[in-house]
């Protein structure tokens, strides 16, 4: 019992640390990737003892700057809410990571260990629920700011996030009909099957349309370009207008965490999670025959790495989109979500359901 608790705490700590560090690195990645895409060099001025290390110290200087800046708190009746709002968003975004299966189970000294904080039967619903809760941070932040512009910004943000939440969930229904489970670990294991002994039956193969819809809705959910209307700081004024210093930083950081979350969810549902193609529990198998035998520890590490690589690739794609496309207009955003994404998702559900029924999968 104590050992189990200790393991959970350790795992949770590892996940938390990993996600937060990765989020920090993403700020640097975003800068560097956009710079390279635009023939620039990117932030490279921060240095320690003359070492610039490709501008990695900017992660640190950003933090120092955020903490050192003057914190301005507007005169508002909801001071507590105002102070809490960024951390509500932050907290729920992080909480969703509890159900993400970063790795398969591994038996170490008789204990089943997995890099997944919790594995409830309704894991995917938990993740969606947490993502939905994160909206509260935005709503409360805009409302407690006692500023009409911030309130309008938060209304826009809420409308957008709720709209795309619907599309996001609808897009995920297609694969779920096939997997017939909400357990995250189960979803990943189901994707380990091979078709004809060579084609990995990942979600993206079975549900390419749902994958696209999910990715687009996910990008919209994370409020990134081209869906970054809620922020649009200088142009249309967003919900975080009155926030300064680290509270503003928390909102911004939440964005990065949500980006990782969307990448993790997509990986889990559509990209086979920690699955490595043709890698079974005992090694690589081609055409049913064992091609390369590997120890369980190596397999586990390979699968963990596979998850990380898939997430990184997705984030690269998300950032590529973010630095390529211009922002939508608000009416375009809404009609795109309701009139295009959602009907397509429903169509996907109907077709999938019919196919599943007919083929009796």
């Amino acid at each position: 019992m104590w050992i189990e608790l200790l393991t959970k705490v350790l795992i949770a700590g590892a996940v938390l640390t990993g996600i937060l560090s990765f989020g920090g690195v993403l700020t640097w990645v975003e800068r560097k990737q956009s710079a390279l895409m635009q023939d620039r060099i990117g932030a490279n001025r921060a240095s320690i003892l003359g070492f610039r290390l490709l501008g990695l110290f900017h992660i640190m200087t950003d933090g120092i700057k955020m903490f050192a800046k003057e914190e301005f708190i507007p005169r508002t009746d909801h001071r507590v809410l105002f102070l809490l709002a960024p951390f509500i968003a932050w907290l729920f975004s992080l909480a969703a990571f509890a159900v993400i299966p970063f790795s398969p189970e591994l038996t170490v000294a008789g204990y089943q260990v997995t890099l997944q904080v919790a594995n409830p039967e309704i894991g995917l619903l938990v993740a969606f629920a947490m993502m939905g809760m994160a909206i509260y941070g935005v709503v409360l932040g805009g409302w407690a700011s006692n500023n009409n512009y911030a309130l309008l910004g938060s209304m826009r943000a809420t409308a957008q996030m709720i709209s795309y939440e619907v599309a996001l969930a609808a897009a995920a229904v297609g694969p779920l009909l096939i997997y017939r489970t909400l357990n995250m670990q189960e979803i990943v294991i189901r994707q380990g099957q091979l078709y004809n002994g060579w084609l990995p039956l990942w979600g993206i193969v079975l549900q390419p349309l749902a994958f696209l819809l999910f990715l687009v809705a996910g990008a919209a959910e994370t409020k990134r370009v081209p869906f970054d209307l809620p922020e649009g700081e200088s142009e249309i004024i967003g919900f975080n207008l009155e926030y300064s210093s680290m509270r503003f930083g928390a909102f911004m950081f939440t964005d990065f965490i949500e980006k990782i979350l969307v990448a993790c969810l997509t990986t889990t549902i559509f990209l086979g999670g920690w699955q490595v193609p043709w890698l079974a529990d005992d090694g690589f198998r081609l055409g049913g025959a064992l091609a390369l035998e590997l120890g369980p520890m190596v397999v586990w590490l390979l699968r963990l790495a596979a998850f990380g690589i898939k997430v990184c690739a997705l984030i690269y794609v998300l950032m590529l989109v973010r630095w390529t496309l211009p922002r939508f207009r608000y009416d375009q955003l809404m009609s795109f979500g309701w009139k295009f994404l959602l009907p397509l998702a429903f169509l996907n559900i109907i077709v999938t359901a019919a196919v599943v029924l007919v083929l009796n999968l």
Partner: protein
Amino acid sequence: MAITVKKIDASPKMNLLERTYLREILRGLWITNRHFVVNLTRHILNLFRIKAKPGAVTIQYPEQHRGYHKRLRTAHYLAHRENDDGPRCVGCMMCETICPAKCIYIVPTEHPDPNVEKQAVKFTIDMGRCVYCGFCVEACPEDAIRMDSGRLDICSYSREGMLWDMDRLLANHHDPAPYKDEEKWLDEEF
């Protein structure tokens, strides 16, 4: 001549494929992705001292200078006389008079040499007010005030710091930035 109205249809003509945007988005992603990969490769090659084109077109400003055209109006300086006995300025106040920003303040006095007669004892330019029109250079009968120092780092933490006095203006000329050859400059830019 009668007024004719020519209607110009500025709205782009798009076919169905273009109107779905999907292909256009993919093309855009392809372009940015290509830049990323190519630039990253170039950076890495350069890092290992393998000759390749630079991975970025930007200039790292304080270390690198772009090179200015020699007709660019940069920070002012006051020229010295040929034999280096004092400034060329005779305190005639032509620049002060023509200055549309009224940012030049001159106090003249008697010059010890009766053939020179007049000199400036105080010559201050409020660089924060200057509009860099170059009228002062045009107006100067002695070619004393010039604007080809090649310096553009005109900055200060206070308004007082933007007041450049005579000593500073006289010393300003010693470190001219490298000028690009005019022909070359034109070739590169246009």
